[in-house]
């Protein structure tokens, strides 16, 4: 009864009839608690992520103080004598990652174009699932594949080390990157020169990052506007003409972002690289030759260090890797976000 009276009341002043009723916007106590909980959880997740960097920094401090700038320029790794640095391992990490991306980029691009433009319906869904499944295969399984099948069975066969690395060293050896020690044409005993190299590690890492890059690219390709695709066809473009002029330019952000995301993964890959390479502590750009190194496999190799400084040095190496991947991932997510926002405005 009083409710009805309340409703009638505002009708007295004629002008205010259309004014909106003030809606209470302040949340109830339960909702305020809910908001606080959510913000707290967000803060907690943020804190965990910040702690990762903080703990590494604190633990690495001693080693960084001992090594000084030499930490970036020294190739050796003898923490006990104070002579250690990440010049060799960081170079190795980057070399392996670049090889991996050089192989993964065309593979991922081709597969993404195939899935988004050449297939549809059930086949498309199956292929998307298969590529996603490939991303979920544990890295140790790729390591097994690389060490027990790819290297001895396909790339470096028999005593003479027949295969692609030997072929490259023989015919493209004049390029410094493809050089190896000794005569690549030597009849026997050359197999060991070509094993455990950055090249083979890079191929295995490429197989692991391709599916990740591929899904990002495929997603951005599938968002290419239908109107522009049909426009290209209406102007007489072939399918490839349409892909080249509509899909690829449209998905450029996805291509860059997917590649960078793959690069970030390649930089941090541990166990498969560790299983394949034979670690050396000097900068080597001869990618076909035995011996290379990476930050993550250094950590996996030496985590049992008993000395304080040894552990601290490993933390410092980990911190460097952490910073590097963080930068790469930020660039990647920016590129992907930009490609997505473009998709929204164009569609």
């Amino acid at each position, binding site marked *: 009864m009083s409710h009805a009276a309340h409703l009638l009341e505002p009708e007295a002043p004629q002008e205010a009839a259309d004014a909106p009723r003030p809606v209470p916007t302040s949340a109830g106590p339960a909702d305020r608690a809910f908001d606080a909980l959510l913000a707290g959880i967000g803060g907690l997740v943020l804190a965990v992520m910040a702690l990762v960097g903080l703990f590494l920094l604190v633990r690495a401090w001693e080693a960084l103080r001992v090594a000084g700038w030499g930490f970036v320029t020294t190739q050796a790794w003898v923490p006990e004598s104070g002579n250690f640095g990440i010049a060799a391992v960081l170079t190795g990490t980057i070399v392996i990652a670049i090889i991996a991306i050089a192989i993964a980029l065309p593979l991922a691009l081709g597969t993404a174009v195939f899935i988004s433009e050449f297939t549809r319906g059930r086949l498309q869904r199956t292929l998307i699932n298969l590529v996603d499944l490939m991303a979920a295969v544990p890295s140790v399984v790729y390591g097994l594949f690389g060490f027990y099948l790819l290297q001895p069975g396909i790339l470096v066969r028999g005593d003479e080390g027949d295969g692609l690395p030997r072929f490259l060293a023989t015919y493209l050896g004049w390029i410094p990157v493809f050089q190896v020690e000794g005569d690549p044409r030597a009849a026997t005993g050359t197999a060991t020169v070509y094993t455990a190299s950055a090249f083979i590690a890079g191929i295995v890492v490429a197989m692991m990052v391709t599916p990740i890059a591929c899904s990002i690219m495929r997603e951005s390709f599938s968002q290419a506007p239908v109107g522009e695709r049909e426009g290209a066809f209406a102007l007489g473009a072939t399918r490839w003409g349409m892909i080249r002029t509509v899909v690829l330019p449209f998905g450029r952000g996805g291509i860059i972002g997917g590649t960078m995301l793959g690069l970030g993964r390649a*930089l941090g890959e*541990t166990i498969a690289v560790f299983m394949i390479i034979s670690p050396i502590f000097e900068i080597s750009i001869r990618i076909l030759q035995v011996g290379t190194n990476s930050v*993550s496999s250094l950590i996996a190799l030496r985590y049992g260090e008993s000395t304080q400084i040894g552990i601290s040095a490993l933390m410092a190496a980990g911190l460097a890797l952490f910073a590097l991947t963080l930068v790469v991932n930020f660039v990647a997510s920016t590129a992907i976000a930009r490609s997505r926002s473009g998709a929204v405005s164009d569609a």
Partner: protein
Amino acid sequence: MTAVLDDRAARTVVGTSPPPVPPPDAPRPIRGVRTSDVLEIVGAALAAISLTSLMFFVLTPFSGLLGYVVVAFVLFVSLYALLVSMDGNRPLVADRTAATIVVALAALLLIVLVTVIVFAFVRGRSALANLNFFVEDMRQAGPLQPLTDGGILHAIVGTLQQITIALVVVVPLGILCAVFLSEVSNPFSRFVRTIVEAMTALPSIIAGLFIYAALILQFGVPRSGFAAAMALAIMALPIVIRAGDVVLRLVPGTLKEAAAALGAPRWRIMWHVTLPTARSGLMTSVILGTARAIGETSPVLLTAGATTALNLNPFDGPQVSLPLATFNFTRSSEETFIARGFGTAAVLLVLVLVLFAAARAIGGRGPGELTSRQLRRRLQRSERDRARIEATGASGASSGTADDEGGPGR
């Protein structure tokens, strides 16, 4: 009347008498396969294989499967382009060449995937064939013991316990954080999202190193299944948050607005509308995070220690997991240990495949889409509600409110 009909008939006759012209609106066939297309492919393939075989087996000392395939493919692409160019223009040649290359790249990726998976099973089959592989640990089995001794029970148990502990942490934290990211939009939540996205690609060894630095060195937690589980949780958390954020955004806004219009506070909207609607997607995101964490080796390598014995207590003493056991086995040069390593990898793969299939089976549906069983149950509930409402309407005769949550006593 008849005149008009006659006229029309006459016209029809006149229209059909000249040689039949195809109706002008019929679309030109643009799909389908022409004979010449097939012939071009078959011809180019035959020519490429013959030429390559000639080069490899007769003329020059080329050898190797990889080289054969590469040379054959290059020859095939060139010959195919040549054949197409004989009755097509340049755009057509470019189209066909590009299509060939794209199909070949996709096929290569699939071949690699199948090889990787099949290889683990083939090399591990000698270990997998023995039942003891699944029910014994490696305590009694030395390097020279045959495959009929010892197994990976300790690793299976370790993986299950570690992933369970990790999920206990990840599921509430991950889903609530995903809710936070999807529901709250302010600079703080955007910052959290940026950080979470960057952490998705956190190197796994760094997660292990962090737990090693924080829990083991700082707080003196022993190397154990628990420490490994924490490292796995750090790996899985960003994946679950990100995937969960995406599926929560797919919940139709109209549902939430309807609940708000009925006067529900936000936490009830979340609990009764948003989360149930996105349930399948959230489960998928959890499963994907699990699948990723379950296969991680390096965090476990740093935090779990090494043992060959079954350890049922994840909080004390070393405890290996399946990927770590695979890694440890295959570092040996004994043939039996390598076989065991591949067998372990195969078991791990089966686990990942099952998780993945589960994720796809659950997550294949959109938000709010129901399985036939859920639909049946919901229909039954709705039927009960109707009966109840009709009953109250008949007896009370004044008002029957349809409230899903209200019991029949209302």
